């Protein structure tokens, strides 16, 4: 357990944990309420929240996809239907 370097709230780790749950859509309603009111007064957690959100966004939208070998689907199907 460590103090939040900005607002001095007693449990920074807890904030980070909830922050991750929120961004993964896994937080409970209560956790969401807590966090939303928390980031209004804690700049550090607010900044963390935005960085984490941005990273997820980058992974979701910017990751290069491998082009799938065009024959793959047919090869698979060929092995099924003989």
């Amino acid at each position: 357990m460590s103090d939040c370097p900005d607002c001095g709230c007693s449990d920074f780790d807890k904030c980070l944990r909830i922050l991750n749950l929120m961004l993964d859509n896994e937080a409970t309603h209560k956790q969401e309420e807590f966090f939303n009111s928390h980031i209004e007064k804690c700049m550090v957690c607010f900044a963390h929240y935005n960085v984490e959100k941005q990273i997820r966004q980058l992974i979701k939208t910017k990751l290069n996809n491998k082009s799938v070998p065009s024959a793959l689907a047919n090869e698979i199907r060929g092995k099924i239907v003989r």
Partner: protein
Amino acid sequence: MANQIDTPVKRSYSETKKIQVFDGEFMPHVDSMYNFAYRLTFDEDDAKDLVQDTYMKAFRFINSFQEGTNAKAWLYRILKNSFINDYRKKSKQPAKVDYQEVEQFYNSEDTPSNATVDLRMETTKDMIGDEISNALNSLAVDFRTVVILCDLEGFTYEEMAKILDIPIGTVRSRLHRARNLLREKLGTYALSMGYN
């Protein structure tokens, strides 16, 4: 979420029905399965083999699959297990890159001309993509996997727990660790991109 992952129920599809289920529910996921396989193995041939094995297994056990449930989660589970059981055993260095081969390729006189074109056409998106890919690929496979399942494929923690056969608490902590590592690698970069 798919019940079939918890309690496999045996049913008996006709041969025609099997093909129909296979085409309708499994085949649409080939592309994302291939990309997942590639991100586990970093090798095109291995990725291809892994996807083929996965689909062969899925077909063999198609009677355990209930139509209309989460086919994608089921396929991911099969692929992940094949990777652990078959692929990892075969290869002692799953992430090896033959640098000499890469070097030879780029220095070679008879490099196909389209390779040069590809390089020229590399867009900003590709470069950003490379940066993100490198960060993701540098994570240990267990961490990489949870990030792929969560961020790219949008599986819930519960689905991930079933796919990976680990408790939900482990999913949570593994993701948390993975996120910390990604933030170390991409945090500054994410900041420079601005908040959207």
